[in-house]
């Protein structure tokens, strides 16, 4: 007797294309993600005609740990892709999900992840219409990877893109920065710390739709995920050929996020968010948008953090709370907790 034999886990056969896989699909994926398209069970999903221009976005999710305060890789995969579609100004409709499972991964954890995906999809009003499952040998994966692709439609008349910021426009954010990254870091092996911070992971399409209704002329929407606010602002500045000047004081930041960053030697502006958006709009629309945002559960702490400037060097600068000015640079390499 070798013990530990009874916990059901992913075996190579779950990806083999046979009955074991079929059962996995029925018992876990169809069960939690069910909708009229997914149940067609063909090579792909047959969907209705779309009414507008299409938007398509994809993201791979490889987060560790898989379960974190405020969500798990399943909800995150839905939120991330819904948000990327929403950041184009589009209404997300359909999601595809490709799972890469590591041999030995507990089935109950997988079910929990897929259940969260189902919940997140229903809340965001999107359907997971098609999927795929592959199993890789133990040691050739990391539990679960999920790649999601979203398709949405965008109404005529909207023109949103990272290249559309112009000097003089206002820069808004819908809430505190760094919550997701800190929640994740707090559970990393060798780094554990206790905090009440939970990930901000959320689907922003509802908020975006309210914002676009109030100000269809919004120029840029972007979710500051990997690389945090700093990367997102630099990206936009680069694409639009503008500078930016933001004020440290105006950036919503939870004290605990600030504390964790001090402790680890990280900058909250480099830390990932999963329920935040940066909006760049005409200055005259800023107040109207802020009040729409404040009225939405995901925008209660929305803030105007700065303005687009003219700058041939396309730099993002920040007036510090201390009274000086500094650049906000992209993240250099990977984020490594530092000692000095």
């Amino acid at each position, binding site marked *: 007797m070798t013990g530990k034999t009874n916990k059901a886990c992913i075996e190579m056969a779950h990806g083999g294309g046979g009955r074991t896989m079929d059962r996995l699909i029925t018992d876990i994926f169809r069960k939690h993600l069910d909708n009229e398209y997914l149940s067609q069970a063909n090579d792909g999903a047959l969907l209705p005609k779309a009414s507008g221009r299409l938007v398509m976005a994809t993201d791979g999710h490889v987060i560790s740990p898989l379960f974190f305060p405020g969500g798990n890789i399943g909800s995150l995969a839905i939120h991330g892709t819904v948000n990327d579609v929403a950041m184009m100004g589009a209404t997300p409709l359909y999601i595809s999900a490709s799972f890469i499972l590591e041999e030995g991964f507990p089935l109950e954890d997988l079910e929990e992840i897929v259940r969260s995906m189902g919940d997140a999809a229903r809340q965001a009003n999107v359907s997971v219409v098609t999927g795929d499952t592959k199993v890789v040998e133990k040691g050739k994966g990391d539990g679960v990877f999920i790649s999601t692709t979203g398709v949405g439609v965008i109404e005529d008349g909207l023109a949103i893109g990272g290249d559309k910021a112009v000097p003089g426009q206002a820069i808004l954010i819908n809430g505190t920065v760094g919550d997701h990254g800190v929640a994740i870091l707090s559970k990393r092996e060798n780094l554990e710390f206790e905090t009440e911070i939970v990930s901000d992971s959320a689907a922003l399409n509802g908020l975006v739709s309210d914002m676009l209704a109030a100000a269809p002329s919004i120029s840029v929407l972007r979710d500051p995920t990997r690389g945090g606010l700093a990367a997102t602002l630099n990206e936009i500045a680069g694409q639009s050929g503008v500078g930016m000047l933001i004020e440290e004081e105006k950036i919503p930041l939870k004290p605990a996020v600030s*504390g964790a960053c001090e*402790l680890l030697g990280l900058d909250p502006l480099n830390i990932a968010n999963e329920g935040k958006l940066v909006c760049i709009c005409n200055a005259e629309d800023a107040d109207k948008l802020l009040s729409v945002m404040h009225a939405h559960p995901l925008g209660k702490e929305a803030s105007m953090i700065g303005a687009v400037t003219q700058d041939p060097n396309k730099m993002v600068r920040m007036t510090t709370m201390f009274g000086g000015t500094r650049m906000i640079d992209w993240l250099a390499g990977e984020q490594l907790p530092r*000692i000095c």
Partner: protein
Amino acid sequence: MCLALPAKIVALEGEDMAVVALEGVKKSVSIALIEDAQVGDYVLVHVGYALHKVSEEEAERTLTIMAEAGVLTEEVRESLGEAS
């Protein structure tokens, strides 16, 4: 050199360990390098170790000096002359 932060001891653990807190963030650190650590003490934390206690009075005094620097330059000079 070296990133180090003042944090408050909120619990003592066994084996020379203590829990420190900074804005609700709690972390377990070694107190093997300091003497007589007590709950409530502020300590300077570096690479998972408390290096030294932080003195409340000295911090206050420094802040007072800073606040008055532009105004009371004489007094500042005198009070600092003694410190090193």
